[in-house]
């Protein structure tokens, strides 16, 4: 059977018609000539008509055949011979093998040996089925996104590369790995493409629920770019089996948005249990900045999750590393028994209060808020508050602030509005509360700007319900409200009355991305939030003084205000808690020479960093890091910055890959191999059952060109022999 490796180029056969078209065009452009020596033309046609016709058609046929041979050669046809008895997989022509190796965290799991070791044996068995001239590319999950390299032909070198591989801490993402494989195929020349997925046989990373992603990937595999035939998909993975139970540290969280210095905080360690594994004798240790601060035994009951709470007070403000580890558990995957988290301990978070009515102490539009945030008014607590009148506001006042609160501000100039928007997008938080001086028209026009401004929603009008409303609906689990309402709940608002509030325009109150944190008894929102860029904005629809409500008199007011401001000021950018494969990015404070920065990894090794750019700002950037644990960046003149790399909790599940999970690739056929012996048997014993024909076609084209030149030269030779004046009179 004849097949074509580059079927898309078969249309090039139309070029074979070019000589005919040229001939027809030629004939149309004929000229007429009066000629006296007709007898010689008539003689010629009488004597050689047949020969002329034969030569003409022969030359035309030869020229068409040359073009046809070249066009067919470009299609890379191959001739398949009959399959050997018992063989399963036929290969047509040279193989372009792309080995996609899943070296994610879960590949290190296994009872007797890591699944990754079995996977490498399968890879070796596959390489043994390749022959001289086959191309090999090797891509790993941990290096997806790195610059691609050209395929190699050296099978021994490929074996060596695979032998050097080891499991890493990255999370598995099979669709991304397959997509990288399809892209790598474009670098190959051989016609028979093979995407060889080599993994641990686990379900993690298959993202079976993401139908749209798999649809797009299936289309790309079925019709690769460049007209290449669809590659075969193979999966080499040991049987998932039961790796045994696994305990994993799933998360480290803190019970508040901002961690204050010298105040106890609750550090919650979540331990996940996968499968059956006894937890007796296992305990969880907690350390901060490398010093142990506590340990607790793991409960013995077989629950899917356990939460262990540690209480710790951080003595110093700044960047800290909290690390937890499970000790004494013999489980299938030791790599997920440790987890790190970077925390910023705060003192004096700068908060700017912009008041419509200036005041001091408890006076002014935000006097009560200022007192709630900084009772001592000395900046020595969690928040350092600065109050400024809206009339005297300078946009430069926004520098170095983490949160800005607007209270009863009638209007802001354009520069200040633009600066506020930029502040939010860059990661800052804004809390907006109206008041008697609020100009609804102005703030709708310049602060909301039809959904493009920083205000979360446009205002409709001032509402004065006949009976004061009461805050009812409360999202108590929201990080901003936990402190205020976690224990008291509804009771915290007992007695609160709202006499006036601003209604929100109905269409914007249901806009995507707008969260209602607290609602009123009449259904109107009281506190809403929306993210904008890296930051967030919270809108309180009533005043934060006693002008429109008596909320400040409630016990929940102070924790509510502090919770909202802490929530708004908790964004850490660039992020310090990362996944393996991410790069560490640090923004040096102004005046600090970033060139002298050094980065130390979890193993104490120095990691190179470089000065680069992050969102238009000067930054120190490292290469992609793969090791789990804490990293410390030090530079003279600035406190050290700590970063934590933690694994994806999904890698700890170790559920085996089910046949239905493989079904996401349907209808593309996928051949799965779990044993090295089956791989060898699956391919033809002679390694190849197809003969590539393009060489013969090229040779035929060259031979035909030679024939064409002979025919043409014959004609020219006849002209030369009969040159004018060749007749010689006899002596």
């Amino acid at each position: 059977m004849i097949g074509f490796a580059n079927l898309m180029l078969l249309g090039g056969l139309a070029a074979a018609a070019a000589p005919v078209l040229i001939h027809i065009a030629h004939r149309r452009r004929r000229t007429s000539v009066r000629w006296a020596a007709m007898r010689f033309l008539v003689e010629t046609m009488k004597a050689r008509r047949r020969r002329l016709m034969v030569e003409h058609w022969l030359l035309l046929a030869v020229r068409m055949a040359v073009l046809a041979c070249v066009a067919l050669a470009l299609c890379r046809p191959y001739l398949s011979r009959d399959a050997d008895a018992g063989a399963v997989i036929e290969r047509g022509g040279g193989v372009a093998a792309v080995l996609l190796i899943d070296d994610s965290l879960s590949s290190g799991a296994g009872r007797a040996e890591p699944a990754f070791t079995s996977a490498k044996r399968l890879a070796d068995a596959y390489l043994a089925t390749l022959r001289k001239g086959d191309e090999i590319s090797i891509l790993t999950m941990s290096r997806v996104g790195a610059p691609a390299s050209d395929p190699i032909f050296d099978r021994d070198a490929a074996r060596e590369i695979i032998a050097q591989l080891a499991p890493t801490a990255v999370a598995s993402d099979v669709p991304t790995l397959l997509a990288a494989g399809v892209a790598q195929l474009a670098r190959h020349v051989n016609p028979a493409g093979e995407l060889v997925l080599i993994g641990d046989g686990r379900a993690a990373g298959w993202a079976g629920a993401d139908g749209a992603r798999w649809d797009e990937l299936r289309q790309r595999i079925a019709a690769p770019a460049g007209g290449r035939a669809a590659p075969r998909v193979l999966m080499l993975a040991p049987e998932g089996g039961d790796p045994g139970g696994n305990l994993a540290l799933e998360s480290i969280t803190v019970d508040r948005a901002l961690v204050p210095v010298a105040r106890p905080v609750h550090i919650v360690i979540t331990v996940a249990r996968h499968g059956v594994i006894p937890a007796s004798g296992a305990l969880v240790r907690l350390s901060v900045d490398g010093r142990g601060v506590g340990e607790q035994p793991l409960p013995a009951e077989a629950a899917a999750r356990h939460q262990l709470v540690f209480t710790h007070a951080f003595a110093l403000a700044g960047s800290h590393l909290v690390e937890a580890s499970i000790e004494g558990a013999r489980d299938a995957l030791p790599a997920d028994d440790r987890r790190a988290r970077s925390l910023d301990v705060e003192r004096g978070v700068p908060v700017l209060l912009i008041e419509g009515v200036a005041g001091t102490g408890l006076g002014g539009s935000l006097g009560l808020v200022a007192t709630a945030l900084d009772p001592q008014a000395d900046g020595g607590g969690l928040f350092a508050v600065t109050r400024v009148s809206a009339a005297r506001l300078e946009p430069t006042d926004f520098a170095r602030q983490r949160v800005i609160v607007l209270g009863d501000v009638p209007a802001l100039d354009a520069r200040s509005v633009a600066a506020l928007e930029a502040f939010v997008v860059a990661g800052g938080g804004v809390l907006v509360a109206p008041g008697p001086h609020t100009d609804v028209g102005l703030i709708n026009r310049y602060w909301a700007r039809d959904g493009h401004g920083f205000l979360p929603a446009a205002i409709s009008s001032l509402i004065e319900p006949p009976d004061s409303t009461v805050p009812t609906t409360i999202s108590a689990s929201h990080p901003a409200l936990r402190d205020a309402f976690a224990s008291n709940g509804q009771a915290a608002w007992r007695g609160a009355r709202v006499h006036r509030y601003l209604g929100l325009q109905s269409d914007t109150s249901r806009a995507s991305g707008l969260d209602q944190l607290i609602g009123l008894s009449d259904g109107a929102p009281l506190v809403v939030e929306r993210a904008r860029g890296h930051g967030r904005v919270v809108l309180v629809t009533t005043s934060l003084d006693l002008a429109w409500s008596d909320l400040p008199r409630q016990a929940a007011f102070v924790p509510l205000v502090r919770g909202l401001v802490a929530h708004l000021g908790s964004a850490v950018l660039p992020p310090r808690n990362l996944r393996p494969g991410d790069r560490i990015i640090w923004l040096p404070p102004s005046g600090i020479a970033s060139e002298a920065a050094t980065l130390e990894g979890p193993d104490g090794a120095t990691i190179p960093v470089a000065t680069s750019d992050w969102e238009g700002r000067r930054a120190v950037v490292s290469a992609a890091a793969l090791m789990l644990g804490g990293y410390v960046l030090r530079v003279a003149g600035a406190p050290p910055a700590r970063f934590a790399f933690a694994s994806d909790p999904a890698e700890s599940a170790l559920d085996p890959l089910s046949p239905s999970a493989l079904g996401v690739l349907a209808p593309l056929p996928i051949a799965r191999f779990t044993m090295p012996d089956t791989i060898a048997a699956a391919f033809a014993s002679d390694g190849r059952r197809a003969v590539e024909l393009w060489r013969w076609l090229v040779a035929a084209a060259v031979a035909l060109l030679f024939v064409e030149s002979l025919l043409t030269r014959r004609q020219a030779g006849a002209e030369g022999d009969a040159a004018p004046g060749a007749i010689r009179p006899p002596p």
Partner: protein
Amino acid sequence: MTLLSTVQEDVLQRLGRIGVAARQAVESVLVGQHRSVRRGLSVEFAGHRSYQPGDDLRRLDWAVYARSDRLDVRLYEEETRLRATLVVDCSGSMAYGSAGATKLDYAKRLAAALGFLMLRQADAVGLATCDTGVRQHLPRGSTMGHLITVLDHLEATTPGGETALGPVLEQLALRLSRRGVVVLITDGYDDPARLLLALRFLRHQRQDVRLFLVADPAEEAFPHVGVVEFLGMEREPRLLLDADRVRGYYREAFAEHRRVIALGCHAINIRVETVRTDEDLAMVLVRALSIERGRQ
């Protein structure tokens, strides 16, 4: 400008410019032509003329030399009266010309030049124009008035009709009662066998024949390219051909035709001169008649 004046300016004056020797060479050949007609026969003494280089030394009158130290040759009456007939092919194919002048124009000038040269030798010149048959036949005459009549007829001749030299030459052979010279100026586009047969008949009728084959340079080279529709000039069928592909075969046929005629003429002692319309007529005459002189 009349044919005479054209010939006088273009040919005869140029012959003079080329050199007295060239003109004398031409004229002496014509003189020698006389001798070839009547070689070895006794004829009436007709006088003396000055010796010219190339004259046969046996004709020197030694008695005159002894008396006067002058080198004179004896002339006989028959030598001075060469009877020549100029036969000009006026068929349709002679109307072809790729660069202005047609073959017929050239043939007329050639015939005129030869006629004038012969008349200066006191020879008799006649004219016959032909295509499929003899159109006009002017008997030979040796006066200037007769030559002018010949030239006028030549000038008035237009091309047309088809080529059939065989029957024409046969007719002429029967009309020419006395021995003489027939100068045939044609493109020769006729059946070679029939043409040679007719020439042989002429020779049999004691006529000395000179054949001038006139061709246009384009007819020799066949410079056409691409697909060309050829329209005949003597009612031949149209032919649509790829000129590039037939060029070689055409040239082969053209050369073979010339070769057959040349070989056939050589066998019957007829001198063939191939002439192109882009050649200088004066040089053609020098070349053709000088070679003739060399043969003598």
